[in-house]
């Protein structure tokens, strides 16, 4: 599989993301945001974490207008797989490719720690290697991860199985981490080809560093 990893001014997780997909045996290519097209043989686009444009105005609000994002939107609308991690998730919601929005954490803190996540839905091209109800241990590191969606939107994503992950305790019971609606940590679009999550699976690849649960998550995308 060939993976494009996007890079904006202020992105800082692009090398970890490349490392993750290369560890899984894929070829990766870094793409600067000024590119207007994606290579034609790309199977997956990853929008990695960081602080694109210094998080000015709102996280992701300026990056979404980069030339490359037009190509990503076109790719996604044709059914191409897109994954947004952390700032990438924020960019994809700002771009309207994913429902909802990410607000400042309720406690106003930048939260950086290992966090348990419960897999809510595995019937998609992302989490198919995980079991529903399974608890994963993945680091989070964000100030604007408080997922918001209005009631009507929530009903829609819940009924359509678009809620992928929730922050949880070790047993899988939802916990309040940043104030997200029903503790949501990750969602997908209606067509289930665009995925976004605040936690960083690319930082959970080695048991020595605390967890290798990220491997199983990312493996799904090539299954």
């Amino acid at each position, binding site marked *: 599989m060939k993976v494009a990893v996007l890079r904006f001014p202020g992105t800082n997780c692009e090398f970890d993301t490349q490392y993750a997909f290369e560890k899984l045996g894929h070829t990766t290519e870094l793409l600067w945001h000024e590119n207007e097209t994606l290579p034609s043989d790309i199977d997956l686009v990853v929008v990695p974490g960081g602080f694109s444009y210094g998080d000015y105005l709102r996280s992701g609000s*300026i990056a979404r*207008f980069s030339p490359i994002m037009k190509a990503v939107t076109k790719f996604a609308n044709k059914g191409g797989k897109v994954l947004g991690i952390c700032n990438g998730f924020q960019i994809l919601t*700002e771009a309207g490719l994913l429902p*909802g929005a990410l607000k400042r954490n309720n*406690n106003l803190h930048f939260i950086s720690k290992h966090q348990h996540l419960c897999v809510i839905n595995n019937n998609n091209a992302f989490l198919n290697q995980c079991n529903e109800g399974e608890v994963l241990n993945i680091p989070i590191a964000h100030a604007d991860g408080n997922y918001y969606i209005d009631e009507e939107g929530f009903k829609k994503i819940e009924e359509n199985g678009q809620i992928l992950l929730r922050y949880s305790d070790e047993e899988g019971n939802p916990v309040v981490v940043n104030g997200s609606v029903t503790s949501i940590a990750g969602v997908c679009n209606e067509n289930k080809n665009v995925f976004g999550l605040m936690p960083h699976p690319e930082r959970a690849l080695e048991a020595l560093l605390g967890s290798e649960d990220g491997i199983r998550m990312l493996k799904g995308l090539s299954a």
Partner: protein
Amino acid sequence: MTAIVNVFLKEGVLDPQGKAAHHALDSLGFAGVDDVRIGKQIVIKLDTDDKIKAEVEVKEMCETLLANTVIEDYTIEIS
């Protein structure tokens, strides 16, 4: 002309910064504060004298970039 855009989180969307400031005001003994909302103000200088044209243009700026209408409302004052 100058456009002053105020962007606030929508009613019903919890404003954690406003809540923290409210709590601080309470702690400092300022009684009678019912609610505090924190937003941002964006001041835009425009090279037109046509108020209607300016309003249309700034509204488009708000809808496109300046506000995320999933969570935020905005007001525009032009002078």
